[in-house]
C-alpha cells in the first residue's frame, strides 16, 4: 500500500504497464509536458505529443490498437469528444461487433470531466451518459485513488475500448491546471477521500463492478465520481435524522453492474440517483429502467445537472449535485410511500 493522489494513482498504473509492455503508448495533446515523467522515462517514441487534432489522433489510436499497439489516447477534456466522436462512435465501438469478436480494439481513452471550479459549460461536462450509450465502449468513472488505479490497471489489460474519465475535482493536477493556476485566492470543495488515498500497486478493479460505500436499508443512493462523496456526506447528515442510506458507487457506467443496483434497491425500495451528467436521456433514466426491468417499482428520484453548466461559481454550485440537494431529495423520497415517486421539485413539467 502506498499513499497516492488520484492522478498519481492513474499515472502509476500507466507507467507500470509501459514498463512491462512495449505495446503500451501514450498519445495526445501536450503529453510530453502533462506526462513529463513518462516522456522522460519512455521517450518520444512512446509518449507522442499530438497536434490539436483530436479527430486525427483519436482515429489513429483506434487504428494503432487494431494493428497491435495498446494506446492510451489522452483527450484533454471529455467536452472535446465532439471533435473526435466518429473515432469512438463509428470506429472503435464497432470493430468487435462487425467482426463477430474476431478483431478487438484495446484502446484506453484517458480524459477529464466534471465541474466545480468555474470553467463554464464547454469545459465542465460529464458526458459519461452520452458515451455509455454506445454499445462496444466501456466507460469507467472512479471516485477514489484506489479505484482510479485499479480501473486503469483493468483498462490497460482490457481487449476492448475503455473510456476512462478522471474528474477534475479529484485530480489535483488537473484542478491546478484548469482551476487554481497557482492562486491562493480560490478554493474548491474537493472531497478529501477522493483526492488522495491508499493504493495497492497493481490491484485490479474489475470493469463493471459497483462498490457499496455505505449501508442502510431506507434508501439507495447511486452515484459516480464526486457525486459519491457528496452522497456520502448527505447520507451522514441523513443518518442523524434517522434515514439510513445505501451509497452505491457505480464506478463503471457501461457495462452497468445491474445486480448490485437491483440487490440494493430490492432491499431499500427507494432509489435516488446522483449524477453530474445531464438529467434527461442519460444515466439516471437508465437506472430507472434497470430497476423496472428487474420487476421493482421503487420510489425514484434524481439529482442531476439539468441544463448547460453556468460559469458563475454560485450558479454552478446550484447546478451541480450538492449535499443539500441530495439530502432534500432523499427526504422527499423517504416521505413517499414505497412504490410511489414524489413529484420532483423544481423540474419543468408538461404544464409549466
Amino acid at each position: 500500500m502506498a499513499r497516492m493522489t488520484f492522478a498519481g494513482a492513474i499515472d502509476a498504473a500507466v507507467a507500470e504497464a509501459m514498463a512491462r509492455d512495449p505495446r503500451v503508448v501514450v498519445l495526445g495533446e501536450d503529453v510530453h509536458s502533462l506526462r513529463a515523467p513518462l516522456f522522460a522515462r519512455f521517450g518520444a517514441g512512446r509518449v507522442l505529443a499530438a497536434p490539436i487534432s483530436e479527430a486525427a489522433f483519436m482515429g489513429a489510436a483506434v487504428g494503432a490498437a487494431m494493428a497491435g499497439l495498446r494506446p492510451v489516447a489522452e483527450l484533454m477534456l471529455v467536452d472535446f469528444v465532439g471533435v473526435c466522436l466518429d473515432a469512438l462512435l463509428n470506429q472503435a465501438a464497432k470493430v468487435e461487433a462487425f467482426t463477430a469478436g474476431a478483431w478487438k480494439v484495446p484502446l484506453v481513452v484517458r480524459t477529464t470531466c466534471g465541474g466545480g471550479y468555474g470553467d463554464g459549460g464547454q469545459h465542465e461536462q460529464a458526458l459519461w451518459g452520452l458515451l455509455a450509450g454506445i454499445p462496444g465502449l466501456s466507460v469507467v468513472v472512479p471516485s477514489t485513488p484506489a479505484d482510479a488505479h485499479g480501473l486503469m490497471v483493468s483498462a490497460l489489460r482490457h481487449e476492448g475500448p475503455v473510456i476512462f474519465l478522471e474528474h477534475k475535482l479529484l485530480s489535483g493536477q488537473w484542478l491546478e491546471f484548469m482551476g487554481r493556476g497557482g492562486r491562493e485566492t480560490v478554493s474548491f470543495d474537493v472531497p478529501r477521500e477522493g483526492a488522495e488515498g491508499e493504493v495497492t500497486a497493481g490491484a485490479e478493479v474489475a470493469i463493471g463492478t459497483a462498490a457499496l460505500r455505505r449501508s442502510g436499508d431506507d434508501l439507495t443512493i447511486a452515484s459516480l465520481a464526486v457525486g459519491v462523496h457528496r452522497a456520502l456526506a448527505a447520507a451522514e447528515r441523513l443518518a442523524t435524522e434517522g434515514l439510513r442510506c445505501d451509497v452505491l458507487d457505480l464506478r463503471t457506467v457501461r457495462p452497468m453492474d445491474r445486480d448490485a443496483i437491483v440487490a440494493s434497491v430490492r432491499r431499500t425500495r427507494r432509489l435516488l440517483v446522483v449524477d453530474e451528467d445531464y438529467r434527461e436521456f442519460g444515466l439516471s433514466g437508465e437506472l430507472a429502467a434497470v430497476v423496472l426491468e428487474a420487476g421493482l417499482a421503487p420510489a425514484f428520484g434524481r439529482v442531476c445537472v439539468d441544463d448547460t453548466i453556468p460559469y458563475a461559481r454560485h450558479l454552478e454550485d446550484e447546478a451541480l449535485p450538492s449535499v443539500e440537494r441530495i439530502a432534500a431529495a432523499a427526504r422527499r423520497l423517504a416521505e413517499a410511500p414505497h412504490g410511489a415517486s414524489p413529484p420532483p421539485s423544481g423540474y419543468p413539467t408538461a404544464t409549466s
Partner: protein
Amino acid sequence: MRSGSDLFRQVARARAFEDALGALWREGRISGEMHLGTGEEGVAAGIVACLREGDAVALDHRPTPVLTALGVDLVAMLREMLGREDGLHRGRAGHMHLMSRAHLAASSGIVGSSAPLGAGFALAARTLRPGAVAVAFFGDGAANQGMLLETLNLAAAWSLPLLLVCKDNGWAITTRTENVTGGDLVARAAAFGLETADVDGADAGAVRDAAGAAIDRARRGKSPTFLRAQVSRLDGHFLGDPLVRTARAPATEGRGLLAAVTAASLARGGAGLGARGRSVLGLMDLLRRARREDRDTARDPLERARRAMAPAEAARIEDEALAEVARAVDAAGESGWRA
C-alpha cells in the same frame, strides 16, 4: 480606415483590459481558466479597424481584445467574468464564451471551431447583407484541427467573403507548433486556393493594411483570404500556465515537476539513454522558450505601437485607456459582488 493614433488607442485599451482581467483573476474574482490575449492586441486592433456594421467575427478562447476593439461594453464583459447576474450573459458564459449579437461576434472554447462558424457568418453575410464580410480568428494550434482545414476548402469552394486570421504564436498549448505541424501554414492555405498574406502581428498598422486589402476583396465577392499574423504569447497559454511558472521560477514553482522528471528519467525500465536524454533536453528547450516571451520588446504590440507615436501623445492615450478600464472595473464591482 483609422489613423495611427486610433490603432494605438485600441491596442492600449485592449492591453489595459487584459491586464485588468489578469488582476481580477489573480485576486480570485474570476474563476477557471483565463486565456489572455496579451500579444494579440495588434491583430485585434488592425483587423477591427477594417470592419463596419454588418460584418461578423468568430472568435476563439482569447476573444477579449477583439471584443474590446469592437466596442462591446467593458462593464458588461467584466461583470460577466465576475459571474454577476448583470453581466453580459448573466454570468452564464465566462470569458471563453463571450458573444454579442449586436456586434455579430461569438467566441467558443473549442479549438478550431471559430473557422466553420466564421464560414457560416460569411454565408449569411453574402446572402443577407451583400458587401458584408466575416472574420474568423484562431491560433496556429487550431490550424491542425480537421474542421479548420475543412473550412479552408469550404471557404474556397463557396468563395465565401471570409477572412481567416491565424494568430501564430508558435505554441499549441504547451507544445511547440513546429513540432506537430507539417509544412507551412500559409503555403497550406494557398494550396486550397485561398489568397494569403503573412504579416508581423505585433505591427497593428501592417495587420490593418493586409486585412484591408483582403476585406475589400471579400466585399467585392472575390476569393477568401488566409492571413497569418505572427504574434507572441505574453502570458502563457493561460494565466498560471505551469510551463511559464516552471520556466520563471524553476527552484520554487517547478520543483515538484523537475524532481519527478529527474526521478523518472533514471527509473528502471523504459527507453534507452539516448531517447531519455532527448526527452529531457526537449523539456528544457520548452522551458527556455517559455521564458523568452516578455513584454516591452519588439514582439510586444503595445511597445511597437508606442514607438510609432510621439511620446507625449502615446502617454496621453495610454493614460486615457487605463482610466477608461479603471472606471469600468469600478463600475463592474460597484454593487452585488458575491465573494
